[in-house]
């Protein structure tokens, strides 16, 4: 069994060099942020993850959460680990100082999220959802509501959930049927919500559900949905949990992965209706939900990075210890560990290169988010917002698809043993598998990308990004990185052609564009990942010149970047062809002909 160890060097490289820590530190309100703080925070988070969270991961998967008489018990050890997590103040890392948080930027919160998710994805979904609830409340709740909930959710003493999905309302939330009827100062909520992650559990003293529901006179469709706060225990005037609300967990799902986290069916209003409090105004719930959804999408993208990293570490450990066969091309000699075999090396390099590229892109997006929120120059703020809007579906869609692929390769490295549950490689794939589905499937992300993010603005932001990629070409050539330059250039050509095709085709034939939206998303991610690796290579060249440089790390970075250029970037061209020429055959067969 491998032990998770946070990849601090690569994280710091991505934070400081690729995402631009100094720019984020220069933003108003981030005066305390510097490299030493990053090192201290990541170091301690890594230690906590390694010693407390990671050791519970496998047992959590094996045991799963249990439901008995409406009460859910988390796997053994989770409650204690969560208590330690809260006591150590980790829950409040990105929270507002006003409510007891540390107010650290996303550029620090995102790598810390990666650490939690690598070590124990199932458990760390609880704090992720809590921060999503906080995000929505901060933007739209009343001062009184914030006073009641924000502090406890920031500390993590209470946890939060998102209640969107109903059996008939999944990706299409206009079909939401849960009802909310006004009764004096509050509402009575009745209905059934499904897929509620950590919807019921014994980790915290209270659970705050954010619920989408319809008022009786609301218009049809998405414009008739309101957002409500429905606490499991109604807070007493002194703020402590009081009477049990009319919400009950009626079942938990049997799942492929993230089994340590309960995925609940919640029944609201079995008796008189659960008491809920309206957030903001009626009928604007979906709009409110989306303010936090973009943030949540980035957070799920980071789960792809986390899964890739954890699977890589696990496979690497096995490859270093498993002895099998002799060096290829040698007669006789000792048997060697499988890391000596070229194909195993290729797999490990692909896992490593993909994970590092994903990490760089995800952290880059996190820094963009910080700048979009806080940049003092309105033009810069807007530019970063557009870039963030463009990057969000790419990080969510591409990093999770890659995460699944990397975790699958991790199993392959193990050979037959990889297929056996006890080896531990399967869990990373099973856990990663949800990431391409929840918070909007890859298909939903891709439609968002081609429609709202590319076609709607005629490819402006995408083309600006392509311009930034092209600007690297001369520097790559003069650094002697011709493979990287050529690989990047070819793939950028493909991305540019595909982007033009999307913009040109979308107005007249949106169905054709939707048919190849996913290949376009993968193309975008691959090229953006290559761009990050090319930048990393150039920085590595520069840093190597310093006398106290970490040559081992920088040389490995160069090797990994070149591998990406030669093994991952070439995948861009066929994807571009798929986009520009493949739409017709997607829809050639009519539904009734299947």
């Amino acid at each position: 069994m491998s032990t998770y160890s946070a990849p601090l060097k690569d994280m710091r490289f991505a934070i400081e060099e690729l995402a631009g820590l100094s720019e984020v530190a220069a933003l108003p309100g981030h005066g305390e942020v510097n490299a030493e703080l990053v090192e201290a925070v990541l170091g301690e988070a890594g230690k906590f993850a390694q010693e407390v969270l990671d050791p519970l991961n496998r047992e959590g998967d094996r045991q799963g959460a249990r439901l008995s008489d409406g009460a859910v018990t988390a796997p053994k050890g989770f409650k204690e680990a969560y208590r330690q997590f809260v006591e150590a103040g980790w829950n409040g890392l990105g929270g507002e100082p006003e409510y007891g948080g540390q107010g650290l930027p996303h550029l620090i919160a995102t790598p810390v999220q990666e650490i939690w998710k690598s070590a124990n994805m199932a458990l760390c979904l609880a704090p992720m959802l809590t921060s999503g609830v906080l995000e929505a409340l901060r933007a739209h709740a009343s001062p009184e509501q914030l006073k009641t909930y924000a502090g406890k959710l920031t500390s993590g003493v209470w946890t939060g959930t998102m209640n969107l999905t109903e059996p008939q309302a999944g990706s299409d939330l206009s079909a939401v049927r849960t009802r909310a009827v006004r009764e004096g100062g509050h509402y009575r909520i009745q209905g059934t919500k499904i897929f509620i992650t950590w919807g019921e559990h014994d980790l915290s003293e209270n659970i705050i559900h954010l619920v989408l529901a319809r008022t009786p006179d609301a218009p049809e469709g998405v414009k008739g949905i309101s957002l409500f706060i429905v606490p499991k225990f109604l807070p007493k005037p002194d703020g402590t949990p009081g009477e049990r609300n009319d919400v009950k967990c009626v079942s938990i799902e049997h799942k492929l992965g993230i089994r340590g986290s309960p995925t609940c069916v919640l029944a609201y209003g079995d008796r008189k209706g659960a008491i809920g409090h309206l957030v903001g105004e009626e009928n604007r719930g979906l709009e409110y939900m989306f303010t936090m959804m973009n943030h949540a999408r980035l957070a799920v993208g980071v789960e792809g990075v986390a899964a890739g990293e954890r699977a890589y570490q696990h496979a690497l450990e096995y490859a270093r210890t498993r002895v099998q066969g002799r060096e290829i091309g040698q007669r006789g000699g000792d048997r060697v560990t499988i890391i000596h075999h070229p194909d195993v090396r290729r797999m490990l390099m692909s896992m490593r290169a993909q994970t590092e590229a994903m990490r760089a892109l995800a952290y880059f997006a996190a820094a963009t988010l910080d700048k979009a929120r806080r940049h003092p120059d309105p033009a810069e703020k807007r530019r970063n917002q557009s870039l963030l809007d463009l990057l969000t579906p790419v990080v969510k869609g591409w990093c999770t698809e890659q995460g699944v692929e990397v975790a699958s390769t991790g199993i392959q490295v193990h050979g037959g043993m990889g297929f056996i549950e006890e080896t531990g490689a399967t869990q990373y794939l099973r856990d990663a598998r949800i990431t391409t589905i929840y918070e909007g499937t890859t298909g939903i992300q891709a439609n968002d990308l081609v429609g709202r993010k590319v076609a709607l603005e005629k490819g402006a932001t995408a083309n600006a990004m392509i311009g930034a990629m092209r600007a690297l070409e001369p520097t790559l050539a003069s650094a002697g990185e011709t493979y990287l330059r050529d690989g990047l250039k070819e793939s950028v050509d493909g991305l540019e052609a595909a982007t033009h095709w999307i913009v040109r085709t979308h107005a007249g034939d949106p169905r054709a564009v939707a048919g190849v939206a996913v290949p376009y998303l993968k193309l975008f991610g691959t090229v953006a990942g290559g761009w990050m690796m090319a930048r990393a290579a150039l920085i590595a060249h520069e840093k190597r010149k310093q006398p106290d440089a970490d040559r081992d790390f920088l040389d490995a970075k160069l090797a990994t970047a070149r591998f990406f250029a030669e093994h991952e970037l070439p995948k861009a061209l066929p994807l571009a062809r798929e986009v520009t020429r493949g739409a017709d055959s997607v829809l050639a067969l009519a539904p009734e002909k299947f």
Partner: protein
Amino acid sequence: MKVLVTVKRVIDPYVKVRVKPDGSGVETANVKMTMNPFCEIAMEQAVRMKEAGVVTEIVAVSIGAQQCQETLRTAMAMGADRGILVETDVEVQPLAVAKVMKAIAAKESPRLVIMGKQAIDDDSNQSGQMLAALLGWPQAAFISKLEVSGDSAEVTREIDGGLEKLTIRLPAVVTTDLRLNEPRYVTLPNIMKAKKKPLEVVKPDALGVDVTPRLTTLKMQEPAKRGAGVKVADVKELVAKLRNEAKVI
């Protein structure tokens, strides 16, 4: 009362240590470093005593390169009130540590010095004892229990074959064993607060201490690889082998 706690920066215990190609020592450049685990126990002890109201001020001291400031920040995040770095780039050997600490003790007048019983890099297990001798203070090494009352402390020492209970006069030097406590995880708010705590940097010269190494490392090499084992047929053969081949009985 004031306590001094020493914290040493060592290679992280999870890192696989490699000998430098030229055999002059182990590779420490760009290797993950952390606080020596025995020093963490010493820090934890001091923090618990402060929480219990026995201690009023904790001063953490580290001796070594500039990067030891990180170790001191960790100590301050654990609960030290301030830090002192005695900055030097030479290899600091136990006697030098003891002399530096003697000079610091003279300046700070602590009632108690808590040190790790040894550092996990060179495993010397000497600095605490030497410091007590230089100061002429009582010492209790390898403690697994410590209770201060008035001018003395009750300690339990882990010794060969059992536990030894002693009462020592204060001021004194104690060194920690593993069972003394389990160090806490540093909390995020305390990491933030530690950034603002005072950290003083002094050179050994300014303390009037010569830290030049007195011992020379001739060569460092990896231990010989372990050969394959053999299966013995019965106890008789085992005993014969232990007696005639291994010559241990």
